[in-house]
């Protein structure tokens, strides 16, 4: 990373890009590419899960159904990240927020399209699905 006055040796660069199995949540990942954000709902006890869970940790049911979420959310809390982790070094400082959706479930996502000074707890935002320029499906909060 940066140079230092202390004696150092340089390690080999470490790149970690694990392959994450998504067979049980495939609909979610495919949905993002189509501009839709899906959650799962337990058929047993009715609990809603986001990110979607294939099984219900509350009642232990394995019967869950897919629910398309509305895009209406309200900001519950947020933080602005200036000192970025290694893998986000190429990004400009960014804002991460937790928004509560109309359905009652909470979503942790980047919040874009606002000046930092404009962001307030309680303000209305829109949740949108998108694909990054690198081709990764994701979702974020934007102005309504």
């Amino acid at each position, binding site marked *: 990373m940066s140079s230092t006055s202390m004696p150092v040796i340089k390690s080999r660069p470490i790149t970690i890009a694990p392959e994450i199995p998504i067979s049980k949540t495939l609909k979610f990942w495919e949905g993002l590419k189509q501009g839709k954000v899906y959650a799962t709902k337990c058929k047993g006890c009715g609990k809603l899960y*986001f*990110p979607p869970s294939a099984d219900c940790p509350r009642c232990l049911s394995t019967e869950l159904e897919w629910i398309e979420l509305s895009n209406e959310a309200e900001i*519950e*809390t947020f933080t602005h990240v200036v000192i970025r982790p290694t893998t986000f070094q190429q990004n400009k400082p960014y804002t991460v927020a937790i928004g509560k959706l109309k359905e009652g479930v*909470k*979503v*942790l996502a980047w919040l874009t399209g606002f000046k930092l000074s404009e962001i307030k707890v309680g303000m209305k935002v829109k949740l949108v699905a998108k694909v990054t320029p690198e081709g990764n499906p994701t979702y974020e909060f934007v102005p309504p």
Partner: protein
Amino acid sequence: MDTPVWVAGIGYSSGTANLSRRLDYVGLEASVLASQRAYKAAGVTPSQVDFAEVHDCFTIAEILAYEDIGLCAKGEGAKLVREGQTEIGGRIPVNMDGGLKSKGHPIGTTGCSMIYELTRQLREEAVEKSRQVPLKNYIGLAHNVGGTGHYCYVTILKR
């Protein structure tokens, strides 16, 4: 070495790893449950504890820990510090060894050092005499958190 210190009770709990699934942003459910289980196992109440070692991985984490493990009511953690209640002579001296940040938070070793400190204090042989806590019930508590607050162990030792 002839002064045994007993494990009076241990409580542990997991919680969600996902920040957006927390019931509360100003506390850790795992800490609340782990401490309740430890108090029950040890058969003691928070007010009987003479002193504590809490997981102050950040300044705010210490204040929230006071509230989560019942050393004060919810929202009164800062007041506990301001009143000097967490110092020697206060209601519940906390982190007499300086806490995590002072010891460089060596992760796994942090927990060991908490038990070491409790033991030395309960035997009234604190490394530096100036930080020996006064003991009434001879009960000390260690609170240790892991991950992003998604698991917690509370250990109560008694002499």
